[in-house]
């Protein structure tokens, strides 16, 4: 573009990048409250628009046909997916988008390396290191996210935890290889073949890292990959000496790190244990068998009986889990809540941090069903109140309400913070069967004296209870 002299253009580009960075920060800040969140997202989007437009002014950008083609195609694909996706499928979509961010970093890094070497300029060690890291982290993010997507969508790859010596061995070998190749890139910059091999090894590493991890540990994995995609963007910023990429990448990296930490804490497990523990793949041998726990102690009830108990309740707390998402029960549950509220019953939702398949998954489903966010209560906030709750309705949750976490120090979930629903006067559990949750252990809550088991599909049961309640 010849509109500005080069010096002028640099100033315009620099200032605009600064404005974009500020908009990303204020945009994120907007997400700290539901009221300001929409405008926060708009600010971030505006920052992105400014960053893109001003980049087109850069001296290096002279031909536009490939840019226009890429943006047009990407916009169509991204928009269609974003508009079509169901709220229950949100974890898969986020995993997929994460992966695309990762592969974009790989492509930019390799393009930059190739162009520099082609032009005959030497690659310095710092740039070479940045290229290696951008390619390594980006590639792991890409294939790792792809595996996470498959596991969440339940296609191609088994969604459970997979533990084989073979996979553990490949993890170690591939990790060491990628590390060695990265060192090669720094010691002897300028060899493209090393970079291609590094890309291939890192792509393989992403596969072997995520394949062993079970479906219910996906909240941690997605949060971690989210962080990686940010750090990859950051590394790309170091290649291009572009502060905007560095700032933005760091923000995203930080966000992923915090979410990963929250998820691990909510399961009382270390990140290493989540990534390499193969949790839930084998049931511990010293665990009490289902027969011991359940035999003769299960009280099964019908929707009519449940409605009668709810009729006399003043305070009801609903605990949603992944099962609610699977049976798409959120709207049916909302109808039940409306009916109870119209009769003066105080209804809250208690949401465990790892309920669902990604952080905040349940909140989005409930928001979709028009439940106000004030009604969605956090675990630490609502736990002291269960003593005064008349009825707790558990829908498709299991391990997060298992009192063994509190009582049995030998249990695989010992020490995991749980929702203390067993303290409530009556507990109703909507569940298809007595099959164990992700931890693979029986739940004494189901056999407790104050528990009624409502066997059936979450959505159908919610509809049945609502109808029964109307007829009372």
């Amino acid at each position, binding site marked *: 573009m010849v509109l500005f002299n080069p010096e002028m253009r640099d100033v315009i580009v620099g200032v605009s990048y600064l404005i974009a960075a500020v908009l990303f920060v204020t945009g994120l800040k907007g997400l*700290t409250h539901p009221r300001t*969140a929409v405008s926060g997202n708009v600010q971030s989007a505006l920052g992105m628009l400014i960053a893109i437009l001003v980049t087109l002014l850069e001296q290096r950008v002279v031909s536009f046909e*490939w840019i226009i083609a890429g943006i047009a195609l990407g916009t169509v694909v991204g928009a269609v997916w974003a508009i079509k996706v169901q709220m229950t499928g*949100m974890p898969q979509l986020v995993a997929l988008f994460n992966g695309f961010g990762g592969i974009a970093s790989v492509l930019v890094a*390799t393009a930059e390396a190739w162009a520099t070497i082609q032009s005959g300029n030497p690659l310095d060690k*710092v740039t070479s290191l940045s290229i290696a890291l951008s390619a390594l982290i980006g590639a792991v993010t890409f294939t790792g996210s792809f595996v996470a997507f498959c596991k969440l969508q339940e296609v191609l790859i088994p969604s459970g935890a997979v533990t084989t010596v073979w996979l553990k061995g490949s993890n170690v070998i591939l990790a060491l290889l990628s590390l060695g190749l990265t060192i090669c890139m720094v010691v002897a910059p300028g060899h493209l073949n090393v970079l291609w091999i590094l890309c291939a090894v890192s792509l393989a590493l992403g596969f072997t890292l995520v394949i062993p991890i079970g479906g219910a540990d996906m909240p941690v994995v997605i949060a971690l990959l989210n962080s990686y995609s940010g750090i990859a963007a950051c590394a790309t910023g170091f290649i291009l000496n572009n502060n905007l990429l*560095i700032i933005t990448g760091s923000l995203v990296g930080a966000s992923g790190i915090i979410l990963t930490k929250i998820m691990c804490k909510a399961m009382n497990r270390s990140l290493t244990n989540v990534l390499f523990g193969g949790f839930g793949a084998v049931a511990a041998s010293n665990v009490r068998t289902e027969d011991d726990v359940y035999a003769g102690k299960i009280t099964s009830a019908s929707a009519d009986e449940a409605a009668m108990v709810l009729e006399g309740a003043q305070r009801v707390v609903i605990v949603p889990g992944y099962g609610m998402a699977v049976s798409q029960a959120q709207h049916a549950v909302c109808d039940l809540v409306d009916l109870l509220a119209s009769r003066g019953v105080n209804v809250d939702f208690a949401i465990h941090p790892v309920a669902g398949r*990604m952080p905040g998954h349940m909140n989005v489903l409930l928001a979709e069903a028009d439940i106000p966010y004030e009604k969605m209560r956090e675990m630490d906030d609502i736990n002291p109140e269960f003593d005064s709750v008349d009825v707790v309705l558990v829908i498709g949750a299991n391990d997060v309400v298992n009192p063994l976490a509190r009582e049995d120090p030998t249990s695989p979930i010992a020490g995991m913070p749980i929702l203390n629903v067993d303290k409530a006067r009556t507990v109703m559990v909507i569940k298809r069967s007595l099959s164990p949750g992700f931890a693979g252990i029986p739940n004494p809550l189901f056999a407790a004296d104050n528990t009624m088991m409502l066997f059936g599909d979450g959505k159908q049961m919610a509809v049945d209870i609502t109808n029964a309640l109307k007829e009372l």
Partner: protein
Amino acid sequence: MTLLLTSLTVFVLAMFLGLEIITKVPPTLHTPLMSGSNAVSGITLVGALLAAGSAHQDLATYLGFAAVFFATINVVGGFLVTHRMLAMFTSKKKKG
């Protein structure tokens, strides 16, 4: 070297800023936070534009084109889906 130090300074400070802000995001908004930060991480698009728009049409252009495509999906899809979610949290207040 000074260039690298400046970049490192920016990196470390931005990291702290990010940790500071994001700790304050309530769990209710964690899913939109993820999809939103995902969209923002599509900032790699800036690097992709530089690669795809260079003067010669060669391997770097094609790699750049692919990068533009993937990063645009990330940006457009990410912001749109975040907007969809956030709108559900704020609109149509009715029940109590």
